[in-house]
């Protein structure tokens, strides 16, 4: 007969104030199979754990139920304690008396009765628990980094420098991300490209890094340590081995008027193009949507001018499959465009631009060579307004959160403007100034005090265009002033940062969870910020929420350490709570009839076929078999199996059935 030990925790007074723990211990002690039933002030404390350990040894317990807080909190603690006492950790269950009982009910008999019911259910279950051994799986020591912005670059370099192979996948033709578009960076005002491009080159040259640009992740199978990823390398219409990057084609292409993505639409590019001069790799791609040849079947100018004959119009997309052990997601963010704001002209006012566009105007390599000019008439604006929190912190716009980076880059923009247009007037309309970072507050003060940027606490309600000027309706809320109209030559919106388009799709492909704003969800907001709920997939940078460069880089290094830590082991140990198809002796071999209706149910492709063969090699029967490396233990196949031939450790049919019965019946 079972010898179950039941340990009821007071949790200080968290449980005992509402539940009569003495009575629970007494009633549970009367159940069949219970050899020991006690209560104690703090079961999770050292003396509490020792109670469990001592009882296991003295009373030769065959199972343990700790009735305390949620198993999501302390199940590992008590399983470890059991293991220390020589009891298989999987013979320990927790009954949730705190979150599910004492904290949600009043002190009365009903609550105590419910507590008894809960504990009894777990006592019934634990009697049917089996001693399980952890599963060991090998680790493929190669990482995949998705996204080649500064976070992806940092993560890839850090992992590669630890001696591991890295595959870096970037969707656009060049790595660099948004940081490559920036002019100067806060709070030091050093040139963004000057600090980034050496890192980009390092990535390209690193012996441990394989770079796939113009590529996307299409599919993912497997599990931590053992992923199989499918990457689509889009056709660049170019033999990259032959191309020398001379750039001749990009100057001869007759399609000249395509808005450049890199210039945020403020500059133009050709149909065959390199996004920007420092691009890595510095080789062109053909934009098939705008290429005359792809549209009409005629042209081929690039092919004609190419000195190395590297153009390949019929080049297909390439599908690359790679085995990897861990993934870092660094897909970054996007910003809302000005067309998102009807009150600010719906994107129709040419001189109402977003922050990223201003970066390009301020950039020495930008469309205006760093001179601030109005897009409408190329005039230098004499009066410029910056509107912070454009969209951010605005529930009405569906973006409740603070985008975190706008206060700082708006101060930077205003300063850059003042440095370039000394006689100009810069106004910043803000709600609050959030400058919480090293040297950040000082930076903002400098803008106000040294560069004389006018900071006005106000929400700009509308912008109206009048005779080439922009009239802002504002009210200085600090002065309590009446709304007034102020005239400007140009307006820069610090638009909200949002999740990268495609983030949702990618999350679904990778089985990673995401929040309501489609930012990837971290496993724990405080303690596991760089992990996802999917083991082996980590987060870096603004794909988790918008963040600035130093934060993105730190997070990337954090994720890299997680990957390196994983790769420091040759084998992973996994919980054995997985499914199993029964096996019997001949002639049945299993009650499984091999209908394989369970196969499409499995999200992890863990259900395989096993052929039972006779001595002469003839296949007698084909049975389902669970790959224990792939199974994650959801149990959907178990509920589906008609002949009840599959079962799952930890939640066996016997266990859950006995729980249901025990909930309503004493034993």
């Amino acid at each position, binding site marked *: 007969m079972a010898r179950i030990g039941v340990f009821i925790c007071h949790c200080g007074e968290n449980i005992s104030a509402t539940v009569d723990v003495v009575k629970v211990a007494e009633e549970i002690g009367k159940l069949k199979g219970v050899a020991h039933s006690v209560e104690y002030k703090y079961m999770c404390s050292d003396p509490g754990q020792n109670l469990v350990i001592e009882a296991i040894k003295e009373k030769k317990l065959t199972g343990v139920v700790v009735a305390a807080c949620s198993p*999501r909190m302390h199940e590992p603690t008590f399983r470890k304690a059991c293991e220390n006492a020589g009891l298989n950790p999987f013979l320990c269950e927790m009954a949730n008396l705190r*979150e599910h009982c004492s904290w949600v*009910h009043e002190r009365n008999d009903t609550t105590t009765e419910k507590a008894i019911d809960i504990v009894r259910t777990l006592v019934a279950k634990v009697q049917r628990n089996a001693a399980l051994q952890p599963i060991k799986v090998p680790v493929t020591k190669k990482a995949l980094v998705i996204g080649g912005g500064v976070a992806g670059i940092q993560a890839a370099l850090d992992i590669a420098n630890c001696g591991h192979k890295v595959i870096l996948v970037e969707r656009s033709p060049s790595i660099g991300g948004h940081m490559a578009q920036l002019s100067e960076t806060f709070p030091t005002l050093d040139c963004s490209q000057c600090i980034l491009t050496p890192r980009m080159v390092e990535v390209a040259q690193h012996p441990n890094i394989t770079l796939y640009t113009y590529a996307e992740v299409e599919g993912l199978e497997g599990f931590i340590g053992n992923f199989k990823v499918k990457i689509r390398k889009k056709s660049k219409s170019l033999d990259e081995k032959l191309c020398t990057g001379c750039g001749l084609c990009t100057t001869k292409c007759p399609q000249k008027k395509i808005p450049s993505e890199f210039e945020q639409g403020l500059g133009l590019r050709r149909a065959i193009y390199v996004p920007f001069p420092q691009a890595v790799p510095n080789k062109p791609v053909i934009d098939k949507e705008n290429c005359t040849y792809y549209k009409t079947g005629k042209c081929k100018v690039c092919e004609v001018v190419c000195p190395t004959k590297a153009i390949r119009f019929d080049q297909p997309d390439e599908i690359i499959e790679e085995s990897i052990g861990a993934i870092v997601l660094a897909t970054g963010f996007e910003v809302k465009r000005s067309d998102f704001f009807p009150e600010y002209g719906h994107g129709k006012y040419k001189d109402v631009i977003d922050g990223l566009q201003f970066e390009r105007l301020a950039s020495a390599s930008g469309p205006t060579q760093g001179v601030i000019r109005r897009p409408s008439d190329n005039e230098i604006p004499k009066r410029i307004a910056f509107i912070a929190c454009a969209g951010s912190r605005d529930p009405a716009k569906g973006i409740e959160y603070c985008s975190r980076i706008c206060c700082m880059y708006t101060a930077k923009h205003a300063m850059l403007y003042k440095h370039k247009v000394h006689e100009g007037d810069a106004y910043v309309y803000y709600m609050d100034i959030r400058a919480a970072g090293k040297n950040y507050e000082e930076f903002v003060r400098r803008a106000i005090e040294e560069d004389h940027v006018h900071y006005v606490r106000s929400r700009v309600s509308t912008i109206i265009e009048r005779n080439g000027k922009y009239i802002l309706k504002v009210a200085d809320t600090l002065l309590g002033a009446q709304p007034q109209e102020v005239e400007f030559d140009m307006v820069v919106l610090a638009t909200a940062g949002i999740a990268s388009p495609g983030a949702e799709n990618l999350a679904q492909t990778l*089985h990673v969870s995401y929040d309501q704003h489609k930012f990837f969800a971290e496993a724990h907001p405080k303690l596991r910020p760089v992990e996802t709920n999917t083991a082996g997939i980590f987060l870096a940078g603004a794909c988790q929420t918008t963040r600035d460069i130093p934060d993105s880089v730190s997070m990337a290094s954090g994720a890299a350490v997680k990957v390196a830590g994983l790769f420091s082991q040759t084998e992973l140990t996994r919980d054995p*709570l997985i499914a199993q198809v029964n096996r019997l002796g001949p002639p049945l071999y299993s009650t499984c009839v091999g209908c394989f209706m369970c196969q499409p*149910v499995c999200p992890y492709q863990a259900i395989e076929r096993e052929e039972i063969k006779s001595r002469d090699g003839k296949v007698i029967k084909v049975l389902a078999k669970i790959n224990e490396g792939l199974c994650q233990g959801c149990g959907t196949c178990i509920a589906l199996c008609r002949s009840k031939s599959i079962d799952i450790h930890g*939640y066996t049919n016997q266990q859950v059935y006995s729980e*249901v019965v025990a*909930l309503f019946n004493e034993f």
Partner: protein
Amino acid sequence: MSEFEPKIVAFVCNWCTYAGADLTGTSRIKYAANVKIIRFPCTGRIDFMLLMKAFQNGADGIIVSGCHPNDCHYSSGNFHAKRRWMAFRELLDYMGVDVERITFSWVSAAEGARWAEIVNTTTEKLRKLGPYTNYQNLVKSGIEEEL
């Protein structure tokens, strides 16, 4: 006569509703003590016959709850569960089982208050419906001649 207190069992998934119910606790939101939770890894794991076992053993009502669509920890368990419940609920209704006694819901780990609300409304509904005597009578009528 004191008010009838229904016995309700909740079959919930570990990742969303169980965690959601934990949050109800940490938020100290009070709810009816009629519901007792049984934890499953995923709603996909919940065998339809378990619902009948609950009724057979004396449940007056049942709550089945898991992650919202697209939020399943195992990505698709709740979609499979949903189909299963769609079909099973039709069968139950066709065979005369009172489907009003089964509450199906999606409650995420962040919806502690919603869990309390679901428990309370289900309990209130079952108080009105009364004990599930139909099924209990079915269970009792067994052997023709009890000696």
